Structure formats: C-alpha cells, structure tokens
C-alpha cells in the first residue's frame, strides 16, 4: 500500500442534495457527491454547469438554497464552523482574484496576517514562493503581472497555511501550454499529501491530474466515480458528450 493509499478513506468533502436558486433560475439542482481523503477529484462540466456555484458553497462564500455541504466535518454555511474549516482549507477562486495594487509579497504577508501565521510567515512565504515559482515577480505590482503569474500567486496564497484540502476553481484557466503543464505538475505533487477538488471544463485536464471525477451539466449531477469508471465504454470525451446530451434532454 502506498502512502497515498493509506491516506485514503474518510470522506473529506461531501455535498448532499445541494441546490442553489436565484429568483427563477436554478444554478444547481440537488447535486450530491463525495470526495475521499487523499484524492485529486476533478469537477468537470461546461461553462454555466454550476461548478463555480458548487465551489462557492463548499467554501462558505454562498449558502445553498437547500441541501447541505460538509468539508472536513464542518458545515460551511455555519459562520463559526466556516472559520474553523477555512483554517484547514486553501481556495483559489475562479479567475484568481487578487488585490492588483499590492505586490505578491504584500499579498502573501496580508493573507498570513489574516490567517494568524505569525512567526512562521517568512518560512511559509519562502515555501510557497518556491512551490509556485514566483520569486522573480515578488516585488512587482500584481497589476503588471501576466495572467500566468497572477494565477500562480493565487495558488501561493491558497497554499500558504499548508492546508489539508485544496479547492481550485479552474486553476489552469487562461494559462499557456507550458504554464498549464507546470500547474498540473504542481497539483499532482500536492495531491500526494492533500485532498484536492478542482473544477475544469478541459477534458484532457481530468486525465492529467485526477483519479476521481464528478461531472455536472445544466446544474445537475451527471456522473460521480473514478476515472476508470468514466472511461468504461468509451473515451473520456465520448462519455462526457453522452452525459451532457442526456442532461440537456432531462433539463428540457
């Protein structure tokens, strides 16, 4: 049994019948899935499928209209439990939003202050700077950084407190092929010791980094299982398009 296998077992992320309704529009319809400890799970779906809404609910930014989320045993919709959860969770929101008037160093120091890292800030910053390869740009205003470097700074802030769980919303969005390869390599390395849920609409990304897959379409769950189970009966691409066609028919 490998280290990764021995880490697996308990459910780290759980979604139970999550729904999110905005007025007359339902962004999520009763979505349920689980991600076990030590797993890299890909949350796959086209744009507008409900991936980001699910991630916002799991991180406590939004509350579900109905249903329940659980991360590391904490309920993100409970304000006090969300605080405890976020101490052990790293999150990269969609498009990697950052304070553009700050430098990466100021950003990381600000996040370290908020997280109360204290005396360990210097070593934590050095660790994530090396992990995300942002040494060259540490003193430049984020407004002047390329999309790739901004995304890496976003990853660095998510890793600063060495969290048990990482939730990454489209971590390779807007990156060039070389940057994509580097970020995927980083995710694979981190996946050896952490539970990772990452959203993507890129089919090749699923096979590149994930061992488990959750597919959503039209705000509904289309598939949840291992990569091997998804591949059964066709390629990932063929299976994905078949699942999406079925969800469109159900929604209609």
């Amino acid at each position, binding site marked *: 049994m490998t280290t990764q296998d021995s880490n697996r077992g308990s459910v780290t992320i759980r979604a139970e019948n999550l729904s999110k309704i905005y007025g007359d529009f339902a962004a999520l319809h009763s979505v349920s899935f689980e991600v076990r400890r030590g797993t890299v799970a890909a949350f796959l779906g086209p744009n507008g499928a409900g991936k980001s809404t699910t991630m916002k609910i799991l991180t406590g930014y939004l509350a579900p209209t109905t249903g329940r989320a659980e991360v590391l045993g904490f309920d993100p919709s409970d304000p006090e439990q969300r605080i405890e959860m976020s101490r052990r969770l790293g999150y990269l929101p969609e498009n990697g*939003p950052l304070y*553009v008037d700050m430098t990466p160093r100021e950003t990381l120091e600000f996040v370290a202050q908020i997280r109360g890292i204290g005396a360990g800030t210097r070593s934590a910053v050095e660790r994530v700077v090396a992990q995300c390869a942002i040494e060259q740009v540490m003193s430049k205003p984020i407004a002047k950084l390329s999309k790739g470097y901004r995304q890496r700074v976003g990853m660095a802030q998510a890793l600063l407190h060495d969290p048990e769980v990482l939730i990454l919303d489209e971590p390779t969005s807007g990156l060039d092929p070389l940057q994509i390869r580097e970020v995927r390599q980083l995710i694979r390395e981190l996946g050896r010791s952490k539970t990772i849920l990452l959203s993507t609409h890129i089919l090749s990304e699923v096979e590149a980094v994930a061992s488990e897959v959750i597919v959503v379409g039209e705000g509904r769950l289309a598939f949840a299982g291992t990569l091997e189970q998804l591949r059964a009966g066709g390629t990932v691409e063929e299976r994905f398009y078949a699942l999406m066609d079925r969800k469109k028919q159900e929604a209609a």
Partner: protein
Amino acid sequence: MSSRAQVVGALFRKELRSFLGNPTGYVFLTLFIVASASAAFLTDTFFSRNLADLATLNQWMPAILMFFVPAVTMGLWADERRSGTDELLLTLPVRDGEVVLGKFLGALGVYTVGLVFSLANVAMLAYLGDPDTGLMFATYLGYWLMGALFVAVGMVGSMFTGNTTVAFILGALGCAGLVVAGMAPWASALVGLVVLAALGALKVSILFGRGAAIGALVGALVGVGLWLGGVPWFVDIFAALSAPAHFASFGEGLLRVGDILYFVGGTAVALYLCTILISRRHW
C-alpha cells in the same frame, strides 16, 4: 494580540496603505485641506466677527464631509466586488463583522489623517489670535465623530454596487440625508420616506430573497401616509437625524452625552447594516 484583532488590524493596514499609497488619495486629502481652510478663513464673516474660532468652518464642514468622505469610502467594498476579491477575502478565516470593522477603521484612519493636516487651521487661528483650547478640542472631536458617522454611511453606499462612481453617489446621498434632515419639515419628511423605503426593501429582501422594489414602494407609501396624514412625530423623528444639529454643541465647546451617543450610535447602526449587506450573498 488576539487572532481576531489581527484580522481587523490586517484589514485596517491594507485599507490605509491602499489609499495613502495611491496619488488619488493625496489629491482627495489636499482638496479636503484646501476646502476646509477656505471655509474657515476665506469668508467675510470670519474677519468681521473678530473671534479666534472655527464657527464659519463649522457651518460648512457637514457639506464638505458630504463629498469628501464618500470619495474615501466609495471603493471600500465596490472595488472588492468589481475585482472579485470579496470571494477571496470572505473565504479566509474572517467574520463578516471583522471585515466591516477593519475596512471602517482603515477609511476612518484616512479621514483622521486629513483632519490632522487640517489642524493647520488651528495654527492659523493661534497666529491671528488666541483660540480657546477646550473649544478647539470639542470642535475637532465633533469633526471626527461626524466624519466617523459619514464614513460608516458612505460604506453602506459602497456595499450596494461594484461601480465606484455609483458607490460615491449613494454614499453622498446618504450623507446628504443626514445633512439636510433638520433643515425644514419637508426635508425631514423626504429623508423619512427614503429611510422607510430602504427599510422596506431590506426587509422584503431578507424575507423573500427578492422583491426589493416592492418593499421599497410599500415603505415609501407608508411614509407618505404618515406624512400626509399629519402624524406629528413622523417629521420630528427624522429631523432628529440631523448631523449639523447634533454637531452644533461641539462647535460651541460643549460635549453633550446625547450628541455623542447620536454619532456613536449612528455609526454602530450603519456598520451593522454593512454587516447585514455583506451577508446578503447567502440570501
């Protein structure tokens, strides 16, 4: 320092640095100092009265703050919403109230810096005459408390939008309401209608998650009914919200508990409203 104070402190420093690290911030501070000095000395009444006080500035200060403070607060939350950093911030281990308090203190810090520079007005008075120290202390405490209230109200305006210009207008309108509330019965009633409409919109949004316009309409109609129905306390209540009226005692060198409570209480209510508005993402 407790971890909670660390959160508020980190946000306070970030806001202060963001404003003072930006050339636009210095433009606003300069305009504030020039405006306050002009209001204090470039009027006929200052020299004709022949008194070493800031009575002329006291008359203009609410109007100056009505524009200056929303310029400081307009980006506090609107910028976070526009750039999406609100999601980054609110998924860190922070409480909504801590975010509001940290940002409020940051903006209040900027205002305090402006106020400190405006002490040049007092230096000018000392050069021209012999100003009363107690009067100056009370006057500046009044400026600071009124500014704190306006910062909190301006912050409420910033909570509604991702557009800083709209946030400025909303903040200025909120502060203007406090400035004009006691000027005339019709002005007090108008402020009352707006307050009731806002409360109606907020209540309906909390209860049903939508229908704010209907809630605002119902609130405004209730206000019109009370006003035209001749209910006497309707105008009186909103006339009592007048910031200049409550500031007047400070300008005379008096520290009245009721006036201090007005500014402190009003600030607390506006900050509580900000906390509710941040949490509306869950509705």
